[in-house]
């Protein structure tokens, strides 16, 4: 419930996102426009991209994106143009910057740390005859029982 109640509020006026009259005649350029739109946030919505949004502002942004493409901008130039106007908040995929470094590096860093801990753990489990890991008689009996199974 919780999740969709929230979702519902942002979609208060469902219906059409991209309207037929917005679509560019050149299919390649239109595909580019759609791809760019999927990465841009509808600023008055909750976590919705302008391609899916029905908000008036989203429509304006979609038209702006297409306008820039028709004017000959590259995808990156269009994105930069929108960011210049609306700030980094408009990007659904934050750029890799000093401020956002931890967001992007969290996964890789945790994976490396986790993998290292796992490896140490498994290697320790693997050294049966180490001094610290020597089995006491009770453990040995248990192990034997398990191995006989």
């Amino acid at each position: 419930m919780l999740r969709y109640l929230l979702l519902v509020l942002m979609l208060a006026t469902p219906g059409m996102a991209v309207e037929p009259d917005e679509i560019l005649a050149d299919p390649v350029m239109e595909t580019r426009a759609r791809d760019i739109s999927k990465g841009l946030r509808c600023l008055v919505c909750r976590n919705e991209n302008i391609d899916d949004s029905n908000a008036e502002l989203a429509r304006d942004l979609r038209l702006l994106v297409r306008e820039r493409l028709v004017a000959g901008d590259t995808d990156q130039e269009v994105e930069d143009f929108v960011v210049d106007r609306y700030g980094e908040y408009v990007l659904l995929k934050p750029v890799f910057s000093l401020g956002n470094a931890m967001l992007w590096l969290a996964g890789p860093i945790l994976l490396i740390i986790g993998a290292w801990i796992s490896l140490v753990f498994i290697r320790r489990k693997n050294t049966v005859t180490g001094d610290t890991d020597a089995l006491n008689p009770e453990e040995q009996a248990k192990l034997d029982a398990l191995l006989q199974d």
Partner: protein
Amino acid sequence: MTAELGHYALILAFAISIPQIFIPMFGANKGWNDWMRFATPAAIAQFLLVGVAFAMLTVAFVTSDFSVRLVAANSHSAKPMLYKVTGVWANHEGSMLLWLTILTLFGATVAVWGGNLPPSLKARVLSVQSMIGAAFLGFILYTSNPFTRLAQPPIDGNGLNPLLQDPGLAFHPPFLYLGYVGLSMAFSFAVAALIEGKVDAAWARWVRPWTLAAWIFLTIGIGLGSWWAYYELGWGGWWFWDPVENASFIPWLMATALLHSAIVVEKRNALKSWTVLLAILAFSFSLIGTFIVRSGVITSVHAFANDPDRGVFILVILAVAIGGALTLYALRATQLKSTAVFGLVSRESGLVMNNLLLSVAAAVVFVGTIWPLVAEITTGAKVSVGAPFFNIAFTPFMVVLAMILPIAAMLPWKRSNLRRTIRPLWGIAALSVALGAAVWVMQTGGRMLAPVGLTLAFWVVVGSLADVAARVKLGKASLTESLRRAGNLPRADWGKMFAHTGFGLMIFGISAIMAWEFEDIRTVEIGQTFPLQAYEVRFEAVESIQGPNYTAERGVFALVKDGVEIVKLYPEKRNYPVQSMPTTEAAIDQSLLRDVYVVLGDRQSDGSWAVRSYVKPFTNWIWIGVFTLAFGGVLSITDRRYRVASTARKTSISAVPAE
């Protein structure tokens, strides 16, 4: 009277929850049986009282008692009965009461069926469970009382958001909560075990069914929500990486990791302290999810329960529960020594990798979800983190998981030979890659998504089947012998096969829809026909219809293939006058191969209509995958050893079968 009765029942439940915290815990420390036994009737009484409160609120909704503020704000006399009932939990106060009802239900099940638990463990588990119960009873009574009366009741209520008036969504919250809150059981067991200072195979056997139950419900709950979004929201999106979705997905990932690590505790008496930590974290993320959703902290603009009092209250609960449990863990975890020994190449190692990938993936989703908040607090920057980020940052973990799954699932326990284990899988691996290559050659666009996705899906599905085939010596022994072996295979092994197959099917459905979806947006006049990939769509009419509590414009479309009409499609644009809110109802022709999805848009000034239509290949396999996953869980939970474990715990752990 009903509302007052409900309110009174809640106060009584609160009054019982406090002694249920202290008496059994103290009794368990002193070894006093009478004190420990207090937990059983208290937990049952607590559940019954909360149940009474929930029933009273339901009565108020069903009878449209608009003198109750909550009913007036969220219900309407003209609403169909189903949605009067589901309206109970389609609001903040009611959903918290449902949360609490399920929490006390889980406590009561331990009280009733936990007869074979060691008495001290049972007492401590119920004591911890009551701590959570008391916290949330306090939360409801002090900040979110659902039974508040209105001095001047309105003639009729405000109604329920029309988008929520849908069978798919009606049952989504109870399932989600059964999962979310069910993880409290794993948490209580973990904290109780830390207090006892003992975690063994018997403990793992006790925790596993509860975690499995929670996980099954969570799986189905998330699946239902996604399915609802697919057909209701009007463009067939099925996952948005919305903070509120992530709030349920993170506990799901943690619970999945927990299920796998608990196997190692049960079978091999290893990974104990990690498993306890996972149990604590899984429920902690459920609590954090509740906080995220209830406080509106992540989504300041449109949050629906944007009330700082409530947020602060939950934040305190959060800090005490998580902080307390982790402190206890830090103090006691070293006592949980493992005796098991295993090699670098072993099932144990495979499960460690599973846990590593799942928990880091969960962490990535968590960091992405709270990042906007972190960035704003630390640097003041306003940042958005949406689907494009998660697709890049999360997907690699699932890719690696899918790659290692069939191998790790077949590795024997303790120590094994990688080359020998892989031998039966080489053929499948080669076939998978060949399939991916064929897809790559055949498809027109150059994207790698479909070839890679299909390779992995085939590899996981067939690899999971091959595991069972190898276990029953299919093709190596006679058919009767194989059948006999299949009959003897424990349910848990079938569960494993189904769950892993479900994961593979999901990969298939997700890759297919992402890579091959076809979309068409145009204006169409009535009577016109337009092409849609291999089909033609004939727009026949628009008619006005009257629903129970809405009016609608209904489009009539004929789906035609090779000149033959396959089916009529009726997408609607509804208007609910009570809320003066429009919704779209997409018309979907479903099949296993593709969905044809048609949405009626606005009427244009020239009299034509905007129409959006899609061909979504293999979409239903996403949900078939989800339910196959859940079915695997159901098979696992009905495994004989949990029933055996509950009736005759004296049999020591004959865990590992001979290889």
